[in-house]
Each structure stands twice: as C-alpha cells, then as structure tokens.
C-alpha cells in the first residue's frame, strides 16, 4: 500500500479512536493518537497478516507493549478486517472483551498487555522460537517512552543482540510525555539513541508521523544481519487534535461533547 493510502488509513483510525474514547469516557487518548501513524503504516503494507486467518503460522507478530493505548490498536484491527468495526461500540462496556487494556481474546491481539515492560521479553521468546526453527516471520514490538523506565525492557535489550535476534524490531513511540509529567523530568531517557547503540542495537530515529520515513524505516529490515533494530519514532502526544497535542492533561482526560466535536472536525 502507498504512503497516501497509509495517511488516509491513519485518519480513519484517529476518527474511530476519538469516538471510542469519547463514547466510553475512557483515558489514554493522547498515547493512542501518538502511535496511529505507525500503526497505519504497519497494517497497510509492512506486516504480513491475514485477517481471515489471524492465527496463520507465518504471520508477522505485532505486540503492543503500551497496552493502555489499545483504542487505536482495536480501531486499526477492525479497519484491517480482523473483526467488524461495529464491535468497537462495545469498547469498555460491561461484559465486553474490548477492555481498556489490550486483551489477547480479541482477534489479532497476540498478547494481553497493560502491565508495562512485558511485551519485549515475550517478543524475545517469539523471536528465539522463530530463529531456532529458521522461520522467516518477524516480530515487532511497539513500546512507549515512559515504559522504558521498567528494568525488564533493559534485560531484554541486553539479550536480543547477544542472541542475534535480527527478526526482532522495536519501535519506541517517543512522545516525550508519560503519566504525570515530561519524560525528561520524571526519568530522563536521553541519550536514548546512544543507549540503544551502546547495547548493540541498530538504531534509527524518524519522525513518527511522517509516513514516508516510517515506511522507509520499516521496509528494509533488519538494518544489519544478525542485529535487532530499534526505531526511535519522535511523536507528538495527542497528534492530530491541536488542543490535545503535547498536553499532559490528555494522558488521562476523556473528551467532553465539545472536545469531541472539535476533535472530529479537525481530523476530517
């Protein structure tokens, strides 16, 4: 799929995400919006998958480590054909499988996440499993910046290059804001690129909203044989809705009627 299609796809995901968060009076819209362009690119040309056969053995595995931002993943999966878009109306309703953290009971979701620092260790296991059987599919993990505070990620970051897991790619949604403040103020990650390079990862930095850059980064993997790839995607929290952009408030806040109307207008 082309860059233009991917941008159109991102717009649809954003609209659906805002609608879900608004209707359910849910949180985490800021972090859901910052990763939309990455999701759109992944599901419109990068990942190998078959929505009619979600357990297809040769599929690429995508794990959302920042499970709290699952609204835009659910929207992406629905719009990619894994299930009916109408099912998203059940999001965060009593008895629904569409929980406010990613659930593996949903078609296309590989792992229940929400507790931070889990998907990368599991992803290392998936990558190791594939390597030992010489299977060609790839493993992609999307992490938040705040969750890099968790030590388990750094254990896994040590592990993957040591064991030549070049079928593993991490994408860091670096929107610079975590739950209660700026990343640099809470627990600074910088120099992030330098850290990942020092841990022996192939590391590249991109604008996480520029579809051409996202496609370029994700189209030729691994960047170097035998070495896992880390993509630091510089993003904007709440991307696409000006009054949400880079605002800490929108980590947890839910849009009211007026916010919702304004947000939809802007994205359309």
């Amino acid at each position, binding site marked *: 799929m082309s860059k233009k299609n991917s941008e159109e796809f991102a717009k649809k995901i954003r609209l659906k995400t805002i609608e879900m968060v608004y209707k359910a009076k849910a949180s985490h819209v800021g972090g859901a919006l910052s990763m939309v362009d990455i999701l759109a690119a992944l599901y419109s040309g990068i990942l190998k998958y078959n929505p009619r056969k979600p357990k297809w053995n040769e599929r690429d595995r995508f794990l959302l480590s920042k499970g709290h931002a699952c609204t835009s993943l659910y929207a992406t999966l629905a719009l990619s054909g894994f299930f009916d878009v109408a099912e998203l109306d059940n999001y965060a309703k009593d008895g629904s499988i569409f929980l406010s953290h990613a659930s*593996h009971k949903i078609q296309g979701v*590989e*792992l*229940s996440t929400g*507790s931070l620092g*889990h998907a*990368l*260790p*599991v*992803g*290392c*296991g*998936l*990558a*190791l*499993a*594939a390597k*030992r059987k010489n299977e060609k599919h790839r493993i992609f993990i999307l992490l938040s910046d705040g969750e890099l505070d968790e*030590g*388990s990620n750094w*254990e*896994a970051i*040590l*592990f993957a290059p*040591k*064991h030549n897991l070049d079928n593993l790619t991490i994408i860091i949604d670096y929107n610079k804001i975590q739950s209660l403040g700026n990343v640099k103020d809470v627990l600074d990650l910088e120099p992030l690129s330098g850290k990942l390079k020092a841990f022996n990862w192939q590391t590249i930095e991109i604008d996480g909203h520029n579809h051409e850059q996202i496609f370029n980064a994700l189209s030729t993997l691994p960047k170097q044989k035998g070495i896992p790839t880390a993509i630091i995607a510089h993003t904007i929290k709440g991307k696409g809705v000006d009054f949400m952009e880079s605002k800490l408030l929108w980590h947890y806040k839910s849009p009211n009627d007026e916010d919702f109307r304004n947000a939809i207008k802007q994205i359309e």
Partner: protein
Amino acid sequence: MNYEQLLIELISNDNRYFVMTAENRAAMRGITNQIKNNFIDTGITEQTMIGMAAGLALRGRVPIVHALATFLTMRAFEFIRTDVGIPNLPVKIMGSVAGFLSEANGPTHQAIEDVSIMRGIPNMNVFCPADLQDFNLGIKKVLQHDNPFYIRYLNLPNVVEHSEFEIGKAEVFGNGKDIAILVYGMLFTQAFKVKEILEKKGYSVRLLNLRTLKPIDETEILKTVNECKLIVTIEDHFITGGLYSILAELLLRNKKTTEVLPIALMNKWFKPALLNDVLEYEGFTANKLAIKIENYFEEKNF
C-alpha cells in the same frame, strides 16, 4: 534416572521441550551442548526469562525454566502471573533449593512463601516431590500437563519406595487412626521416620505424602480428617499460605473442623546452616518432630 538424563530423553522424544535457565545450571550443567537447540541461558534475568518462556510457549514450546526458587517465584512473580497465568501457557517453573534446601544461604535465598504465592495464580499447579525417586515418578506427567506448573525441584535420595504417581493424588502410608501427618517436599523423609518413632511408642499413625499441593487431594484428606484424631501438617514454609492454609480452606469449604497441629516456620526466616543443623535448630528432625507431636497428642487427652 538423573535429571540430566531425563531432559535428554524428553527432548529427544519431543522437540517441544525447551530448557531455560537464568544462569543457574546446577541441574543441567553436563548436557547444555547435547541439548543446545533446545536450550538457552538468558543470564541473570528471571523476570525477562519468564516473559521469553511465555513467548516460546505461544509458539508451541514447553519451556522448563530454572533458577533459584526465591528469585524465580518472587522477582519474576508478576511475569509468571501475567504472561504465563493469564493466557494459561504450559510453562514449567523449576525452583531449586526451595525451603530448607537453601541451607546456609541466608534469608535472601530462602523460598518459604513459594507455595503460597504460586498456588494463588489461576491455572497454576504446584508439585512438591518428596525426593528424587518421587520427582522422577511424577515429573513426566507434570511436564506433559497442559497447564503451568511450579515444581520444588530436589534430588535427595529416597528412604522408601514410592508408589505410582497421579496428579492430585496423595501417597498414603498406613491407616492409623490416632495421628495423621500431612507433608510435602523434602520433609517427607523426616515425617516417614516420625511415623516409625510414634508407632514404636504405640500410636496408630498414617502419613500422607501430598505430592501436588494444587490440585490437592481433597478426597483423601477429608477421609483422613474423618478417621483420625489429630492432623499434623509439616512444612518448610511460612505458616501463611502453605499446607496449613490449604487444609484450613479445605475444611471450611466442607463445613468441617478438626484438631490440627501445624508445624511450619512461624513468621520468621530460619537460621542459615547446613541442612542437618537447620533441621536440628528449627526443630524439624524426626526426633524433635515426634516429641512435639506426642506432647501435643497427650495434652489433648483424646
């Protein structure tokens, strides 16, 4: 058969088995080259190793993970609960030097709450063999089980020939009616001697080697409670959450009560020492246990 031979046999018959360790190779040091396609040492990364085990299990493997029981069950607890427990993956968690077996290592290394925290996880099962023979009798069924298992690994010699193993079934010795001893793990050996000592003194004793604490053999325990005057639980575990708690829950669930003497670690870590000295100091030698049980029985005037 020793544990290394067992792993080689398992893997050569079934390529799904995958041996993992967080740099604790005591149980498989001699065979890592022979099983290298089904082996990984992840470094000292218990939590991350469990995450990886979940990833391997999602791809159809049956990971057998190894580390000291303390670090495996506690440092990695949330990973076991979340990545293994929630999707109910068949990861087999092999905790070494649990309970008194940590000997002189000190409180940091004492896994004496492991049964309590592992059994609290939905889908998780708990196997605590009495000795190497008991372990060998049970381990294949445990590894072949579809659910996750926590295993108190040990390789101590047996003092008695054990009978056939079945998950959720206790091994019963004798049919005494005065005193019933419920035990699991390495203290079985002491408990077996306690039975002999008490019998020589004229008491009628039965002994239950529980083998799996989850699932627990509710039928056999209820039968024992109905038939015996005094129930004694013996465990190298904190009093909270282990066998005594399992028994209490079981009795309450069945609207029953009975006379119970719990022998466990009463809200304290044990004094670090060589195993025999630990047993002596903490009062878990057969002789000391027998005296304690006899005194309690006589006080009660059954």
